[in-house]
């Protein structure tokens, strides 16, 4: 009996000692660890609010009335919501961009998302969100894209290192989406001088085809580039492309790049060009300019140098090439090729 009481007393004493230890530790441990350079493994915040603001303008920076945005929102990697919004008020695009009251300004599409923390990795607390959009408007080419935000994310660091910020984005992610119409590819001069509506519609059909059907994966038709030009007393229909590929100058010289550009860009557009715009009475041929880029891949700080390749190709030769009457080399031989305004010969093999 006495022994049992003794044991009980000892247990009480042990419990009290433990309690005191816990109590003291609770005091010491109550202060914030970032002052002590201690690691932190749980998120400091339960959610972050990410805001997206999307506006839509045309090539001249004017709001596009009636444009519709179809959007999908993701909280970290989880699908959160989707919907549609039609831009109504287009009177002023620059009004109160940071006011988030829903009814004060309809020029912007706004989405406010409460993002939950992603604690997949012990050293990172991520607050990531994404807004995918497709922008549509009558008479404009559809465009799509995505906006992301990691506002509020931070790096907790390894043991005994102080925290450092990880977020790169602002709380409000803003994007001005630009929509383009087919005539945005026409030069003003061409629009004013060329009175032939039929020709314009043919050119628009060609632009539609190369844009919508994706004939060119690595080259872009430049805006305001479609025009007419003259060379050696012949009239050409002019198109100007920018090739997004940068070629390695250590492996390919300027002539090799010209061959690549002929294969990757020119060859691909000859068929639709001849299908849609074939008017020998109006044009002798096509003036196709492609901007190529080259740099030394051995030098990581080297900046790319632009080279202008200009192909004056007679329409008749294109037709023959299309009908397989002549080869690619023969087509080149019938054409005039300028490299940075110097005439060159090109041998494909």
């Amino acid at each position: 009996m006495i022994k049992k009481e003794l044991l009980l007393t000892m247990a009480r004493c042990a419990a009290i000692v433990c309690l005191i230890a816990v109590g003291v530790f609770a005091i010491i441990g109550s202060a914030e660890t970032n002052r002590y350079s201690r690691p932190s493994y749980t998120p400091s915040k339960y959610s972050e609010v990410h805001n997206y603001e999307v506006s839509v303008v045309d090539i001249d920076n004017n709001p596009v009335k009636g444009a519709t945005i179809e959007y999908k929102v993701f909280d970290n990697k989880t699908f959160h919501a989707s919907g549609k919004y039609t831009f109504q008020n287009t009177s002023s695009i620059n009004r109160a961009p940071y006011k988030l009251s829903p009814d004060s300004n309809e020029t912007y599409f706004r989405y406010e998302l409460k993002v939950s923390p992603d604690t997949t990795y012990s050293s990172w607390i991520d607050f990531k969100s994404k807004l995918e959009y497709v922008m549509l408007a009558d008479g404009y080419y559809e465009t799509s894209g995505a906006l992301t935000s990691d506002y509020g994310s931070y790096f907790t660091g390894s043991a005994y290192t102080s925290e450092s910020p990880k977020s790169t984005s602002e709380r409000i992610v803003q994007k001005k989406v630009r929509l383009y119409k087919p005539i945005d590819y026409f030069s003003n001069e061409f629009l004013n001088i060329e009175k032939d509506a039929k020709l314009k519609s043919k050119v628009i059909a060609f632009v539609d085809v190369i844009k919508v059907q994706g004939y060119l994966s690595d080259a872009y038709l430049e805006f305001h580039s479609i025009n007419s030009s003259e060379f050696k007393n012949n009239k050409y229909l002019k198109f100007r492309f920018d090739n997004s590929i940068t070629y390695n100058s250590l492996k390919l010289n300027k002539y090799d790049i010209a061959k690549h550009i002929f294969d990757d860009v020119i060859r691909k557009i000859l068929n639709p060009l001849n299908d849609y715009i074939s008017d020998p009475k109006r044009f002798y041929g096509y003036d196709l300019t492609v901007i190529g880029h080259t740099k030394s891949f051995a030098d990581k700080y080297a900046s790319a140098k632009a080279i202008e390749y200009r192909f004056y190709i007679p329409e008749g030769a294109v037709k023959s090439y299309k009908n397989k009457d002549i080869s690619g080399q023969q087509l080149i031989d019938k054409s005039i090729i300028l490299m940075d305004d110097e005439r060159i010969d090109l041998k494909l093999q």
Partner: protein
Amino acid sequence: MINLKQFTIGLLTLLLGVIYYVLVRNPGKVYAIQGINWLWLANLNNFHAINVAMRFLSPAFLHSCSFSLLTASILSEGGDRKYIAVCLFWAAIGSLFEFGQYLKPDILAKYFDLLGVGWLIELTYHYFKHGTFDIFDIVNTILGCLIAYKIMLFTKEQEAI
């Protein structure tokens, strides 16, 4: 064996202290509770009563009150003197640590390498060094002990189980 009422009230007060740190402070950075996912407690933010309570409570108050009650609940027999001793003890502990933040004793820095407890000494050193002395924390500590003492007296009649 223990006074269940005192123990329960003490435990609830301690939980309230944890909720305070989760809702008001930064739980991911509080050493004693970091490493635990307290996100579920964050939903308590939606309760107005809890939000109001958090405005009036202080960690110093909750700490001294809860640990006084928990210690008293373990004592074999509840007596006024024992209760007073327990409350005084926790009031002294709380106040000492608060005064430590005023005095900031650098001598602790010499014992960071002390086998086994060096990390605790280092933690204490940083607590003193970076903490802010606040006389209201001492008032709250004493107030917590007084409230705990009152609760002890109310729950004293209950037969210890």
